[in-house]
């Protein structure tokens, strides 16, 4: 029993850390620009292919090398997506629906590009770290520990950026009151672009951490996207704190469900938990849904 609990704790922790960075990327874009980015999972997969090309697929770089190339590339990709996919439909009536549909279309474009370029066969990435250690009688892979450490570090860096950096404060200002941000001199369009850039970086970072565990395949971005979507709604659309709580709560639920009922029950149980939360708090754990 004790062993099961320890196991649930470690797998919940590592899942929660990953869900946290992945869902934060989706939430960041919604929070700043009110765009629900359906292409997020596909952008994540595209970044995973990028990581594969940089490592085993083509250039043979090690993980630090992949990181140094992939992060700026993902940021630039996010900026381009905002500029050429989102902005053209932004200043129109019904833009919320229009941007949502545009991102859905863009998701299909990316998925099929990946399918054409890389083929239907899934790619495997080398492990981040080999070996395992014993903690409280449980065998924990070094890979898992590295993932937890790096993901939590990324979350801490993002939080520090949003709290103290002037640009981070501008992002929070835009998410709380767009008109208020414009009248203090914040260039709202640039903040939208920054949001997309950071979001793409978070997706790429998650891809880097997850690809060694899951395979890289053309439609592989949809299951994590679906989970991120549930987490973001659960936490309250656009709320960073809410997303972090939701990510860890649902991760521990998932770990417990796997240990007790088996993996097929994850999503049904998630949706029951989500419905229960939305019944009590219709805007999610910490959502405000302000404009």
């Amino acid at each position, binding site marked *: 029993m004790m062993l099961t609990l320890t196991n649930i704790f470690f797998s919940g922790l590592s899942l929660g850390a990953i869900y946290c960075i992945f869902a934060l990327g989706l939430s960041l874009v919604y929070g700043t620009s009110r765009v629900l980015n359906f292409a997020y999972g596909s952008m994540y997969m595209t970044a995973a292919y990028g990581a594969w090309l940089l490592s085993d697929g083509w250039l043979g770089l090690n993980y630090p090398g992949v990181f140094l190339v992939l992060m700026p590339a993902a940021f630039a990709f996010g900026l381009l997506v905002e500029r050429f996919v989102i902005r053209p439909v932004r200043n129109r009536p019904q833009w919320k629906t229009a941007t949502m549909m545009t991102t859905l279309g863009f998701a299909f474009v990316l998925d099929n590009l990946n399918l054409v370029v890389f083929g239907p066969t899934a790619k495997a990435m080398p492990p981040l770290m080999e070996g395992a250690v014993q903690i409280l009688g449980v065998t924990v892979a070094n890979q898992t520990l590295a993932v937890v450490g790096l993901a939590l570090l990324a979350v801490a860096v993002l939080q520090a950026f949003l709290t103290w950096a002037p640009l981070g404060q501008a992002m929070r200002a835009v998410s709380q009151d767009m008109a208020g941000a414009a009248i*203090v001199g914040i260039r709202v369009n640039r903040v939208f672009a920054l949001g997309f850039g950071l979001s793409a970086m978070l997706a790429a970072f998650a891809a880097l951490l997850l690809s060694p565990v899951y395979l890289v395949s053309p439609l592989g971005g949809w299951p994590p996207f679906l989970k991120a979507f549930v987490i973001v709604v659960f936490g309250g659309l656009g709320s960073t704190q809410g997303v972090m709580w939701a990510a860890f709560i649902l991760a521990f639920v998932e770990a417990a469900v796997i240990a007790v009922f088996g993996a097929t029950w994850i999503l049904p149980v998630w949706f029951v938990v989500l419905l229960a939360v939305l019944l009590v708090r219709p805007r999610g754990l910490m959502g405000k849904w302000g404009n």
Partner: protein
Amino acid sequence: MSIEVSALNVFYGDFHALHDVSLHVPERSMTGIVGANGHGKSTLLKAICGLLRPRSGTITWRGERIDGLDAPDLVARGIVHVAEARHLFVDMTVRENLMLGAYATRDRAAVRARLDRVFALYPRLAERQGQVAGTLSGGEAQMLALGRGMMAGAELMAIDEPSLGLAPALTELMLDTIAAINAAGTTILLVEQSLPLIAGRVSPVYEIEEGKVRPAGDGEGAGA
């Protein structure tokens, strides 16, 4: 002349909101615009402050054409909008709101000096620095909106209905502080619903009705 608006037309879709509006705001003046709700007061202020694109007409600021510029470009020139809805950052503290007011200012000493001025004018804000803006009372929220405008280093402050939702005594206090901001050298463009409220404080005064603007005297004694 500080702001010169001439033959300005603004539309919301097919709705013609402002008709050939012309007015000027003299340098260092406290200029008033009065009119009932829905007649275009806020629209006019938003157009001047770069939050709405006029369809035709010109706006100049110290001789430079500014119609077509966005709000951040105007903030950089010292034209600051204090909105009727206040548009505060409700999850941030009073201090964070004020500091964001100075977002476009890089000179730290200037920011520091402006913060001291805001706290001198509104001691309440100094007491509530750490409080989250969403929990302020109506009067405090209005003070914060004005304080945030001062933090931007406004040379022209366009203030939309500062009396909105405030008790008469508080409104008087708010108008007194706006007069103090004006006396310290900032040009004020003040929009209100009723002339008696601001008569004697503003000059010149314009009346706005169904999107048309006409002069309403120099404000002295008018409507009293």
